């Protein structure tokens, strides 16, 4: 049986997987943060993201119409069926790298959600309206840290600079419009990614200026996580994340 609305299904999965994978990554910091206060800060963001993922994945399950719920979509898909952009799955590295990844994605989600609140798809508009408030805080948190680290000590500056240099090429994928993005924009479900990129770029430039960091040069390289072709890191993360549901199917607590 074909999915009723394949494009919408894939689009909503992308939104959900971005939040799910990034939330899982942040959750890996719990117990390892540089300070107890940061442990809670990161966990708070992680829980917000998990909440967003639940809403998106439940909706995706309904669109698909094959009886898969949020749990099945979150825990029982294969590596290649996850549709998050590749940036989200990149390993935490040091705290600086986690912060850079977070800033890049927070600003993206903020710009995206703000526009999705006027989506022609009511359900998406509602989820975005809830998520946009959370995301504003996420960027405030991560942006504050980027400025502190960039305009900080020699070492903190060196670490975030190298993280920025390393992660920058993954941002190309966030704005690479494929046929799903195109179809969604045509139907008024999603914004044009080129518009999102413009304001994202402004946001990032302002933050980088405050952090006295230089914006890396653009590189033409692109990744394809949104189509299910991931970097080698996602598999390891999923193995850990899915272990419990696969070992004890249907486990609850």
């Amino acid at each position: 049986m074909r999915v009723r609305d394949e494009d919408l299904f894939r689009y909503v999965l992308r939104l959900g997987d971005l939040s799910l994978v990034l939330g899982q990554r942040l959750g890996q910091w719990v117990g390892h943060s540089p300070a107890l206060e940061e442990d809670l800060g990161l966990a708070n963001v992680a829980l917000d993201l998990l909440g967003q993922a639940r809403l998106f994945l439940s909706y995706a399950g309904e669109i698909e119409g094959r009886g898969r719920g949020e749990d099945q979509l979150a825990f029982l898909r294969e590596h290649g069926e996850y549709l998050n952009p590749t940036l989200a799955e990149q390993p935490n590295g040091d705290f600086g790298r986690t912060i850079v990844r977070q800033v890049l994605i927070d600003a993206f989600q903020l710009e995206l959600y703000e526009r999705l609140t006027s989506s022609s798809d009511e359900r998406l508009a509602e989820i975005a309206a809830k998520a946009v408030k959370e995301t504003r805080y996420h960027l405030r948190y991560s942006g504050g840290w980027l400025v502190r680290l960039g305009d900080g000590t020699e070492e903190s500056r060196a670490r975030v600079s190298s993280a920025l240099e390393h992660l920058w090429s993954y941002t190309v994928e966030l704005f690479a419009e494929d046929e799903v993005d195109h179809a969604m924009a045509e139907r008024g479900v999603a914004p044009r990614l080129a518009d999102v990129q413009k304001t994202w770029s402004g946001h990032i430039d302002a933050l980088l200026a405050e952090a006295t960091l230089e914006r890396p040069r653009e590189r033409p390289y692109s990744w394809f996580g949104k189509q299910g072709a991931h970097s080698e890191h996602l598999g390891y993360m999923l193995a850990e994340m899915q272990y419990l549901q696969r070992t004890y199917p249907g486990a609850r607590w």
Partner: protein
Amino acid sequence: MEDKHQWPLYEVFVRSRGGLDHKHAGSLHAADARMALEHARDLYTRREEGVSIWVVRSTDITASDPRDADSLFEPARDKVYRHPTFYDIPNEVKTL
């Protein structure tokens, strides 16, 4: 001297809803005031405990010395006339 390896301590005050006072909620470590606010939000208002937060560097608070308690607070003990308990309340007043 300030310890470079430990962030300074901040005291957190949370107002639970409009019209009420800010109450001391606890303390936390943060590198600056903005971070202290964010930590306070994450630590002390995660279950909707507040609508407003104040943070202040613990070192900026001047506290009374417990050893002075005798001279500071004892003298008030035998001055019951300072309590407004010596007035006759008219029967008509119901809500005092």
